[in-house]
């Protein structure tokens, strides 16, 4: 238990943050990994030191891991079944004009 009454994480570590970095040239943010930190500013600094020291990124996001709602392996059936028996979901039977890249 910290002085201000907030409960310590159950594993005795500082809270976990997920780190997203934006590669140079403005590509979409990618998940890089996670860091422990006591607050957002520290998380940002730790993320910078752990994941971006070799020019990998031009921007960093840090998000409390607890704020992320994730799908579970049990979801894999209903969530991600591509429905291969429904050919209209896969519009691949159109003829593509020559010179168009898909």
């Amino acid at each position, binding site marked *: 238990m910290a*002085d201000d009454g907030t409960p310590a994480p159950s594993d005795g570590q500082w809270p976990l943050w997920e780190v997203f970095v934006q590669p140079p040239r403005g590509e979409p943010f990618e998940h890089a990994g996670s860091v422990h930190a*006591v*607050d957002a*500013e520290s998380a940002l600094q730790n993320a910078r030191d752990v994941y971006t020291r070799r020019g990998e990124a031009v921007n960093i996001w840090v998000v409390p891991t607890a704020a992320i709602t994730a799908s579970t392996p049990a979801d894999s059936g209903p969530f991600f079944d591509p429905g291969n028996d429904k050919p209209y979901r896969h519009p691949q039977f159109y003829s593509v004009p020559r010179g168009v890249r898909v």
Partner: protein
Amino acid sequence: MAPALDGPVQAALVQYLLRLGDDRLVLGHRLSEWCGHAPILEEDIALANIALDLVGQATLFLGLAGAAEAAGRDADALAYLREAIDFRNVLLAELPKGDFAFTIVRQFLFSVAAYYRLEGLATSSHGDLAGIAGKALKETRYHVRHSGEWVIRLGDGTSESHTRTQAALDALWRYTGEMFLADDVDATLVRAGVIPDLATAEPKWLAQVTGVIERATLAVPPSGYMQRGGRTGRHTEHLGIMLAEMQILQRSYPGAKW
């Protein structure tokens, strides 16, 4: 190639560069002692990164010092083959690393002072010196941010961290004055137009340091007697012990490379 300077100015420049290089080499080594021992993995990496920045800056400043001295000594020779009495770092840099609060407070006090010095030196008429200062300035801005944020969290954290951080501040305060001492070396270089007058660095440092200390709910120690001696080679007993460890490889296996 820098323009040739008069003999006394050139000698002062060598001294000045040794001071800049030695501050960073010694403090960088002290920080590296945390490698594998920091409170958490993330901070271990952060301290090692800052240590590497400082040793990198030392390499550049000492390399330039060796070139200006023109006595055939490169950065490695200056780092590994001088005795404690020849080192020109401030005493603040050589004190043992202490606890985490001590290391963080020292880093903060040093980095803010370094920031304002480098900011001035980046405008030096000496092209190489200005270039190195500009590169180091960028790194130092991050060192200030990292150590400053830690001072606030430690001071305004638990009663234990507050007590330790205040104790570190009280112990280190008397070593801060030496960072702003200007002697004949500085005066010679200012007169020759090599470096700007850095008299404003100390009030700027005090204002910034005071702001962070107050945000951290800590007390600025009363100003009083300031320790000095490092700039002229009069060091604490701690430096020799540190150098013995830092230099043993080159001393035992001269010229060893890997």
